[in-house]
């Protein structure tokens, strides 16, 4: 299970990177970033997964005393929570940038924004 998702995350990472590096449209680049981030999140969760165990919530299904043997690693999950929110903030900001850039030059082609160079 965790291997499947790890490999998926890994391939997704490359797809996202392809999007970032090869697409000319700024919106597409940002989409590349969201996929890149999601891929990282999948990888992180996969790392915390232990096969056959359940969520780290100590309700009736998981009594406190056997928690250690029943739950998956909660730490990566906490990290991913943080990471998802961060990527939302960054994506929103990037989109705001895209809006502004489009306003200046009426285009979304990234290679049209080469006013600063050398």
């Amino acid at each position, binding site marked *: *299970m965790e291997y499947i*998702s790890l490999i998926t995350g890994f391939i997704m990472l490359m*797809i996202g990177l392809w999007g970032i590096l090869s697409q000319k449209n700024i*919106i597409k680049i940002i989409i590349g970033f969201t996929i890149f981030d999601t891929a990282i999140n999948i990888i992180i*969760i996969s790392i915390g997964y232990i096969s056959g165990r359940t969520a780290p*919530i100590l309700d009736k299904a998981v009594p406190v005393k056997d928690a250690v043997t029943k739950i998956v690693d909660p730490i990566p999950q906490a990290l991913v929570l943080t990471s998802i929110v961060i990527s939302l903030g960054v994506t929103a900001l990037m989109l705001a940038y895209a809006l502004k850039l489009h306003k200046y030059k009426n285009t979304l082609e990234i290679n049209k924004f080469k006013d600063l160079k050398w």
Partner: protein
Amino acid sequence: MILNITAVFLCIAILVMAVIAVIHKKLVIAIIASGVVSLFASIIFLLLAAPDVAMTEAAIGSGLTTIIFFYVLNKIRKESNG
């Protein structure tokens, strides 16, 4: 076992969607595809025993992010036309 098979299918779907999101010429479809990627990812999170993350990904990753994308896209379209 069934879980694993579901996971494999999901993963293949995710990858297909991701490829569409990255290379499709139409921005609307690309954005929708990326939203679907997030949605499927949240199901994977559920399978990986991470309900908290699944909820967050669904609400933020596939929900709000997509909405913001569309708002921006809409705005850009109108600007280009007018």
